[in-house]
């Protein structure tokens, strides 16, 4: 019986065409793996990746685009939002988009991804662009804390212009403090004071807890580690940066630039140091005593809900919580903020967010003009409506800004910066963050901080070796 599939187009021929098709498709797919990318948008259209909701990105686009048109009538801004639970999540999605070959011109970058993107030459150094525009940026540099700018430098070069930050302070529920008979802690309160407050709050009872936290790098048990004069990595600074610190950029800056260098240099891991073990064991013991619930990993949505519903006495937060707690239904006056307690030192941590230009952008000058517009004080509320982060420009931290959302002692947000160090985010940040989360949850479930941190030390050593 004749097979209808055998005569006219034989199998061999079919396989030949099929093979050729597969090969072409294979080449196509491998080409998609290429990282050459599109190098930004078409001439005149600046493409930007924004960390947040698309509605906010669209609002930002509408707010900024008319100003860009004043610079170049044909210029357009296309802002694409990327959602994420935190900067780590955002960074992973940005990298995935880069992998797809769609490389924008401008990207929001936080401390978490700064050194990774810079070390891979994905971001272009802004040194020349800043030097050429010093007069136009004088207000910007005059009003910003130099530590924020220094945190966005890598190997002596500036990679982003920061417009926001969050330093780890201690938020507290005023109603639970009242119930526990506690008054507002002093600005220079100690770990003993903190522990005493926690014990008092734990006696309030009901379904409340004295303290809660989130497993992550920023504002986790790491805040206690910093206060204990430790860190996950050896702290150091790159040489260089004189082109900026020695220029007139910071003339008139109230803080001054003395001692500033070319960015933070993260050295060997110190994750199982005595300070680290003591800090992690402290929060584990708080949980064992019933003063603290099991923490969530990443994000912080659950913690925010618990705090907003009056079930948590104290927790670590930054300026982003003013808007976050207000949006969660907390009224001004129901929460407040105080500096992080002092342990062996008064060192605390912060993370900064800003804007960088992809090295592949073909419109770097125009992109820089857009960034200059975005870091202007008047653009801040279009970019970050509702106090969802802390402005980098001190002039923007006013009583009027926090009139609706609170907290009463909003000035703590900026004051906390004076003794802060950026979160330790080396070029292999992602591997470090993954290991930190895993080992922290291991420590919580086993109750043994030392063993888990020995593991973390080994994990970070391995990650550093693989990255080098």
């Amino acid at each position, binding site marked *: 019986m*004749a097979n*209808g*599939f*055998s*005569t*006219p*187009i034989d199998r061999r021929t*079919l396989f030949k065409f*099929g093979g050729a*098709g*597969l090969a072409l*498709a*294979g080449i196509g*797919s*491998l080409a998609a*793996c*290429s*990282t050459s990318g599109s190098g930004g948008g078409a001439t005149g259209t600046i493409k930007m990746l924004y960390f947040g909701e698309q509605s906010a990105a669209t609002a930002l686009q509408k707010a900024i685009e008319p100003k860009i048109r004043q610079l170049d009538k044909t210029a357009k801004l296309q802002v694409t939002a990327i959602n994420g639970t935190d900067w*780590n999540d955002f960074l*992973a999605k940005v*990298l*995935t988009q*880069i*992998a797809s070959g769609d490389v924008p011109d401008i990207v929001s970058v936080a401390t978490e991804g700064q050194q990774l993107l810079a070390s*891979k030459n*994905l971001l272009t150094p802004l040194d020349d662009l800043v030097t050429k525009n010093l007069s136009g940026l004088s207000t910007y540099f005059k009003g910003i804390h130099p530590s924020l700018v220094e945190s966005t430098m890598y190997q002596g070069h500036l990679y982003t212009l920061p417009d926001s930050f969050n330093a780890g302070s201690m938020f507290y529920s005023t109603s639970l403090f009242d119930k526990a008979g506690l008054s507002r802690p002093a600005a220079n309160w100690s770990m003993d004071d903190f522990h005493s407050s926690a014990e008092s709050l734990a006696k309030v009872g009901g*379904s409340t*807890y004295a303290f809660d936290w989130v497993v992550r790098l920023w504002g986790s048990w790491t805040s206690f580690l910093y206060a204990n004069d430790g860190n996950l990595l050896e702290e150091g600074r790159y040489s260089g940066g004189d082109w900026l610190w020695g220029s007139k950029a910071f003339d008139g800056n109230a803080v001054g630039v003395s001692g500033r260098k070319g960015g933070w240099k993260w050295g060997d891991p110190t994750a199982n140091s005595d300070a680290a073990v003591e800090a992690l064991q402290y929060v584990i013991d708080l949980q064992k005593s019933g003063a603290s*619930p*099991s923490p969530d*990993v*990443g994000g912080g949505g659950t913690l925010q809900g*618990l705090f907003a519903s009056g*079930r948590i006495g104290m927790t670590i937060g930054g300026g982003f919580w003013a808007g976050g707690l207000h949006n969660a239904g907390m009224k001004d006056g129901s929460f407040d903020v105080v500096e992080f307690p002092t342990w062996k030192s008064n060192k605390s941590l912060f993370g900064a967010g800003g804007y960088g230009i992809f090295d592949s952008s073909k419109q770097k000058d125009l992109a820089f003009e857009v960034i200059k517009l975005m870091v202007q004080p008047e653009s801040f509320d279009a970019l970050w409506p509702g106090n969802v982060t802390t402005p980098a420009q001190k002039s923007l931290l006013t009583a009027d800004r926090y009139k609706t959302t609170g907290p009463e002692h909003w000035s703590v947000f900026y004051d906390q910066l004076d003794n802060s160090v950026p979160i330790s985010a080396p070029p*292999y940040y*992602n*591997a470090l*963050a*993954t290991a930190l*989360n*895993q*080992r922290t*949850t*291991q420590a*919580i*479930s*086993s109750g043994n901080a030392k063993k*888990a941190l020995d593991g973390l030390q080994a994990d970070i050593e391995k*990650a550093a070796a*693989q990255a080098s």
Partner: protein
Amino acid sequence: MTATTGFRSRRAAEVAARRPAAKRVRRREASFGYAMIGLAVVFVAVFTFIPILASLGLSFTSWDVISSPKFVGLDNYVRLFTDGPVLASFGVTVVLAVCIVALQISLGMLLAVLANNRKRNATRVFFRTSFYLPLLASSAAVSIFMGYIFDTKFGLINYYLNEIGLPGAHWLNDPFWAKVTVVLVVVWQQVGFTFVLFVAALMSVPVDVQEAAAIDGAGPWRTLFRIKIPLISPTILFATVIAMINAMQLFDQPFIMTKGGPGTATTTATISLYQAGFQNLQFGFASAIAILLLVIIGIITGIQFIAARKLVFYQ
């Protein structure tokens, strides 16, 4: 003789005249056939074979997305077989998969038998719909929801356990209970799939065979184990293979509920793959994990089919 020869030659001439037409018809049919399967072939090639081949190729490279891939030979595989946490994640995957499949199949069968014994069709439809509904929900949404329910301090489960005087468990914060929770959530969501398959299979068991068994004195249990289960064994095999393949690729529930923790207690192979690729930017290593997982799933499926030769009864 001459007449016969003449007839044959006329016949041959007619056949020869018809041959091009027949060829045209066959060609048309063949083209139609290839067109029909062509889309499926292209779909499978583009979305299955090429990604597998690309993954295989990438597994011999070091690629961080940002720079170009560098050929590293078997380095990723050497690292894979010496990387304790990643190997442990394969162990976790197998343990979770075996528990999930065992529970999913046995519970699915139990529910199917109970539902099938209902006399009223409406009752059977009600149970079928009820047990299938969780499968329609997004596993991400289910995982978030279950994360709240199983929360140690604020979850409903511990609340009701405490209400009846039982101590709550650290469902998501203890290495053992975290595994149990993941298994329970996956089985709760997936059991509807096996349940519906088994209900349909049980309904297809010939009534005359069941009646003959009853006449021979077989009770309900003997009928179930000696008649029904052997007759639906091909369906059981199918459900087991599919459930095992799905369970070996377990990701959503542990990733969302426990982030693979505490420690690495619920870190499955696919979570290791995600961490290596999308968090640590080691796509070559992540591809090696994917290839090993593919091989392991292939071996397990092969073992299931070999075992099926003795255990599955084809009518």
